[in-house]
């Protein structure tokens, strides 16, 4: 490399007198990118072989003239500082709309794939041991145990409710298996005042905030006690008092909405931020682009958490985008970003805590890419063994399980035991089965719920329709299900 630099400098000096030569005849050839090969030996010179080609101070061997492929010579900025005959510098800066840019006479394309991917922040290794010199926020025994038991509760809830769907007791379910650390540890780093706009694979955040197993079950069964009044499919939880916006099935729409909600917090100067979640697939939506761009421009206090779990139903990330994951996209929008090991509860906790702090004090958006794996199927309507190898799923379910990894760390601190574990699991299971029974037996919502909330107040036409419906039911009671209250 150094040899090349020195040679190119001398070539540049040689060329300065010939500057006219490459400006005119090679104007067109400039537009034909040449093939730069940094590996090839730097023996070519300007004379002879390369006549008519772009001069080699731009690269080592432009022999594949006209070929369309090119690599940048090296990553990172390197400018050739050409001195002209008067000793002035040709490399100047100029004011363009948008700011001051300095020039370079080296035509260098930023590589589409860097030699090294952005590294991933982690605190615990696969055996639950803290990595030496890792920087992280200390977690007390109480907090750690709360996080751990919530993770176990989430896993148990997912397993049992998934089974309930399989048994035909609820119509639909989707699990967060494998992503318990993201669900719980991010929630643990937030305050109850932070507004959460979820996608749909984050019920753990609501669980952390105090939503009970009974409340979850009520929504899944769509009964009278469901806060959603039986309006939505299972897993579309929402709760104003927990500052958790109702799940909406459309992908990525929450991303620009989060900016709007954050703008409201900003106007009120609240000590809170908005946190919104989405998966790797969601970053392909137009809303992702609009939302992140806007958040940066408006300086909105949003923490964007991307659960990059490798799969969007059957689409693997290699077919979703060609960038180095999602973390590099933040930079493109002028947003500070970090990549975190999403299965490391402590790393997730520390990063989210830091991101929240920055978002609020500096009033700007932050992007966190959490790397994880979607162990379960996309939902009960999916069988992922059809598009991915079973042993891959098994590997992430066992060897890379976030709960067992955190358990190991908790164990080593002497805070937990096998007995505690089996007690906890048995307890949660019992509570949940009870909650499901209660939810299943509970009455369905009354038919008035069919018409309310379309608008703030019931409009006359819906009032009429409701009356007509009730009359119909009175006249034909045998056609109306007996277990649904009127």
């Amino acid at each position: 490399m150094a040899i090349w630099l020195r040679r190119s400098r001398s070539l540049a000096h040689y060329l300065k007198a010939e500057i006219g030569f490459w400006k005119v005849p090679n104007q067109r050839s400039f537009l034909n990118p040449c093939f730069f090969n940094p590996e090839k030996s730097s023996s070519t010179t300007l004379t002879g072989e390369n006549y008519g080609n772009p001069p080699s101070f731009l690269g080592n061997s432009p022999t594949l003239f006209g070929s369309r492929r090119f690599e940048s010579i090296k990553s990172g900025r390197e400018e050739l500082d050409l001195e002209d005959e008067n000793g002035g510098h040709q490399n100047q800066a100029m004011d363009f709309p948008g700011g001051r840019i300095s020039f370079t006479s080296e035509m260098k394309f930023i590589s589409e794939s860097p030699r090294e991917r952005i590294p991933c922040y982690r605190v615990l290794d696969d055996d639950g041991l803290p990595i030496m010199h890792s920087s992280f926020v200390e977690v007390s025994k109480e907090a750690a145990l709360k996080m751990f038991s919530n993770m176990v509760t989430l896993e148990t809830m997912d397993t049992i409710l998934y089974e309930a769907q399989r048994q035909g007791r609820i119509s639909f379910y989707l699990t967060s298996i494998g992503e318990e650390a993201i669900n719980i540890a991010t929630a643990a780093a937030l305050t109850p005042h932070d507004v959460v706009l979820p996608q749909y694979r984050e019920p753990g955040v609501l669980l952390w905030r105090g939503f009970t197993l009974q409340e979850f079950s009520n929504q899944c069964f769509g009964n009278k006690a469901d806060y959603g009044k039986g309006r939505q499919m299972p897993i579309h939880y929402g709760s104003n008092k927990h500052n958790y916006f109702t799940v909406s099935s459309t992908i990525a729409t929450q991303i620009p909405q989060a900016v709007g909600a954050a703008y409201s917090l900003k106007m009120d100067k609240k000590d809170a931020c908005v946190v919104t979640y989405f998966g790797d697939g969601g970053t392909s939506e137009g809303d992702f682009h609009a939302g992140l761009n806007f958040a940066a421009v408006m300086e909105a206090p949003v923490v964007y958490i991307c659960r990059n779990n490798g799969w969007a139903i059957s689409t693997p990330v290699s077919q979703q985008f060609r960038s180095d994951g999602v973390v590099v996209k933040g930079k493109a929008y002028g947003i500070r970003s970090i990549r975190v090991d999403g299965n490391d509860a402590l790393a997730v906790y520390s990063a989210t805590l830091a991101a929240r702090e920055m978002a609020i004090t500096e009033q700007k958006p932050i992007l966190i890419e959490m790397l994880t794996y979607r162990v379960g199927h996309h939902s009960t309507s999916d069988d992922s063994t059809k598009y991915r190898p079973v042993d891959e799923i098994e590997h992430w379910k066992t060897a890379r399980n976030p709960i067992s990894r955190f358990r190991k760390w908790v164990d080593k601190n002497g805070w937990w035991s096998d007995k505690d574990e089996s007690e906890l699991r048995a307890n949660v299971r019992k509570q949940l089965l009870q909650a499901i029974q209660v939810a299943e037996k509970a009455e369905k919502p009354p038919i008035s719920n069919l018409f309310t909330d379309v608008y703030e107040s019931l409009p006359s036409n819906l009032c009429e329709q409701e009356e007509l419906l009730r009359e119909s039911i009175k006249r034909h009671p045998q056609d109306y299900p007996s277990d649904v209250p009127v």
Partner: protein
Amino acid sequence: MLGIVRGRIARGGVNASSLQKIRNQSLIYASSRSYSSASKEMTVRDALNSALDEEMSADPKVFVMGEEVGEYQGAYKISKGLLEKYGPERVVDTPITEAGFAGIGVGAAYHGLRPVVEFMTFNFSMQAIDHIINSAAKSNYMSAGQISVPIVFRGPNGAAAGVGAQHSQCYAAWFGACPGLKVLAPYSSEDARGLLKAAIRDPDPVVFLENELLYGESFPISAEVLDSSFCLPIGKAKIEREGKDVTITAFSKMVGYALKAAEILAKEGISAEVINLRSIRPLDRSTINASVRKTNRLITVEEGFPQHGVGAEICACVVEESFEYLDAPVERIAGADVPMPYAANLERMAVPQIEDIVRAAKRACYRSVPMAATA
């Protein structure tokens, strides 16, 4: 500007506590069927601008967002002067992303602000239509009342002059089909002021369809309308001209055409009743039906495409409720079933003209038992 307190209402000198009382009073005034004697005139543009100004002044949660609304004073100057008065926090110039700023507006509304989102024309709202329907219209219902969306989407709708197919579509029928939305279409300056204020104050998402060619038109305006608490009820049509032979329903620019057609018809002995719908959703079915029961004939007029249009809905509701009263089939006047052409002569052929309305009204009158009023 965050310190703007509710009580500091710009004009009229009313305080918050008597606001409701005056609001009720002005509703009574507003429902009177003629313009009260007034020498003042106001363009629709100024009417909209003043309505925005007053509502922003009255409620610090109201803010305006859209492309060019700030520094440029609004693509059609509707938001003129607002940036200067309220600052960039409340008049937000956005990047070019309708989906983006509609989504952001919805998110802000979720969290308690009252955004007024401007689309440069409703043609561009199609790029944001997911947020309008799925995120705004349905949210209150899907969240069981936990998430209300007090947002207004406004902008010019329908044909302008020589702007071609992608700038001329009328979206009244599309948005009018969606439960959860309210859809308004003002005609005069009084409509513009009263309906925009009502829209901003309404807790539900409102689609406010203006008309570019009406912005510059001037209408006489009374003192009641100029009062800052003036508001029109949503869901009430206005009978612009009373008549007894045929009912003509219209909205937005077509109201003007219908009124001119009514003038022409009057000279020929046909007394037409012109109804200015004002509200596409909820549609004022009772006013329309009451009118048809009086005149027994109905013509619906709209600029938009004929299939599945507003006229189709009006016809269906009249057939459902007042079938026995009809003496002639209901006729729909609508734009041609083609994307809007550009050339001036073609464009003229693609939108309803006054003569079309006159001829249709006559057809409705002749298609009756001989003893009905004929020329």
